[in-house]
């Protein structure tokens, strides 16, 4: 299976929480949004869902 880590944009939520250790929930969100992140698509849910899940740094 191709599980290449997507390139993370400097303005992305991933960059904003770069110093915070990833939680299992955060890793799962990254996995779910892997195609969005890979091609740099705009999807407001990429911001709203982590905030709803109360992920640290969001």
């Amino acid at each position: 299976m191709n599980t290449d880590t997507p390139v993370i944009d400097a303005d992305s939520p991933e960059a904003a929480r770069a110093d915070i250790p990833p939680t299992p929930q955060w890793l799962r969100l990254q996995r779910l949004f892997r195609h969005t992140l890979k091609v740099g698509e705009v999807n407001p849910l990429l911001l709203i869902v982590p905030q709803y899940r109360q992920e640290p740094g969001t």
Partner: protein
Amino acid sequence: MTLIQADTVIARVCELPALSAVVMELIQSLGDDDLSADQLAKKISNDQALAAKTLRLANSSFYGMSRQVTSITDATAILGLRTLRSVAMAAGLAGSFPATASGGFDFKAFWRHSIGTALCARALATAVRREEEIAFTLGLLHDIGRLALVTAFPQQFAKTLAHQRANDLLPLDAERSVLGTDHAAVGGMIAEHWRFSPAIVQAIAHHHAPTDGDEASLADLLHVADNMAHALDMSQQEDDTVPPLSMAAWSRLALDEARCTQVFRQAEAQHESVCQALLM
């Protein structure tokens, strides 16, 4: 590539175990309030499996009933015609396709996602003031093309799944690459073949690519609800992924964070109880 032609799809779908006559009638009667509550109760009561599942769902925490509903007649009086119709359709659809093993297709995850999309669509419909019953039913039906493909073309679909996993593709891209068609197009054909209303056919066929327009359509609502159900991980399938979101559809629905959060809370609060009632 194993191209599947449109006429072959329809021919094979005709050979599939049909949706029960009651479920077909219920879906075709969507939006028609002339169907009387008595007629509806009789139709459901004549199908024992459907009646049992309908009662189980009516008694689940989804509907928050204060007392046990013990008969379909009771359910009609307590839930009302529209709600009972959507409960019975959900129960009937979930029981219509046998969960036979097929190349790693996960039926449980499929239904968990479909139910999640139905609940997101229903909550979204409330938020944007659209018909909740139709939205719920569309959520349940939106990936019916996938179910039809795996049931009617098990070997070809197994190749599609293998190709998708090996290359970490979106399901739609893997289907187009291996089969030459995709589940949205097939779903639209099936919905048309089953003589569902044009609005339902259009919404299913375009749920991954809503057409342009000035006003929010059912396809927009379904598209965003599907995206939300993936983003909320409602299928719990390890390789699930959020498909591309149409920003035009998103804008037409005029959603903001507060509305989304409300939709998420409502859908997640009901998801487990509906899955338990329908997937037992």
